[in-house]
């Protein structure tokens, strides 16, 4: 398996973490399910995005694949300040967190650490979206490392925010090979 992939085990571990996160649920605990209906879990390195959540408490909001979200400009107006990544992508689709407590699973498959900033856009006031971003998490993520971000560790991860913007700047020297991936989920 290439180093830039999220492995079956890592996804499984992430789901286990999530399962703990939603403790209190019982038969509706989120779990990994087979999307082809055969009854067998089908984590594969080739198709990690095929994994789905089951359970009424959790909803997958967005699975952002290789370089998908390393954008110069996000929907929420954040300007990506780094210019060393090989690819850029402008994602104009907001991550709507209005009805979910958002949580983010990040995997840094690069050979250098990256600096992660997760912004929350303040919840709409009336019909207007407040033009203000708040930083809900900001820190380096080591080369090869994965991390689960939610309100248990970062209190500003809460239903008070409308959307999420994940921004990454490079370390120095800039990462060369690898990918960054994010799975954004929400607790209903």
């Amino acid at each position: 398996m290439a180093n830039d992939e999220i492995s079956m085990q890592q996804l499984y571990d992430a789901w286990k973490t999530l399962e703990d996160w939603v403790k209190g649920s019982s038969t509706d605990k989120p779990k990994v399910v087979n999307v082809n209906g055969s009854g067998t879990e089908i984590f594969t390195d080739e198709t990690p995005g095929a994994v789905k959540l089951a359970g009424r408490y959790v909803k997958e909001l967005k699975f952002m694949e290789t370089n998908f979200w390393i954008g110069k400009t996000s929907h929420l107006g954040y300007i990506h300040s780094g210019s060393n990544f090989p690819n850029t992508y402008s994602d104009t689709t907001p991550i709507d967190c209005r009805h979910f407590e958002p949580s983010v699973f990040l995997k840094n498959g690069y050979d250098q650490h990256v600096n992660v900033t997760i912004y929350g856009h303040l919840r709409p006031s009336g019909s207007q979206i407040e033009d203000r971003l708040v930083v809900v998490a900001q820190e380096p993520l080591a080369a090869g490392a994965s991390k689960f971000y939610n309100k248990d560790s970062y209190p500003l991860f809460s239903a008070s925010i409308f959307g999420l913007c994940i921004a990454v700047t490079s370390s120095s020297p800039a990462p060369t090979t690898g990918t960054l991936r994010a799975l954004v989920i929400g607790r209903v």
Partner: protein
Amino acid sequence: MIAEDVKTIFKPYVLSEDYLDIGNGQFVSIDFFIDLFGNVSTPPTFDDLMSVDCGTRGYAEFFARCKSEGLFN
């Protein structure tokens, strides 16, 4: 270092046989760790490991903690 070395040296931080808990909620696969630090001799020293980390891979804090706990010199 090979995977078995890593599991032995970093035993207090091995998760599920395949991952290292490097602190602050971060975990990394041992395979990836070997890709980064596999060329370091066994047993490693803090200086050996940091010569690969170069202050850019994000492992300095983890290695410092391991050193302070006597996992290596």
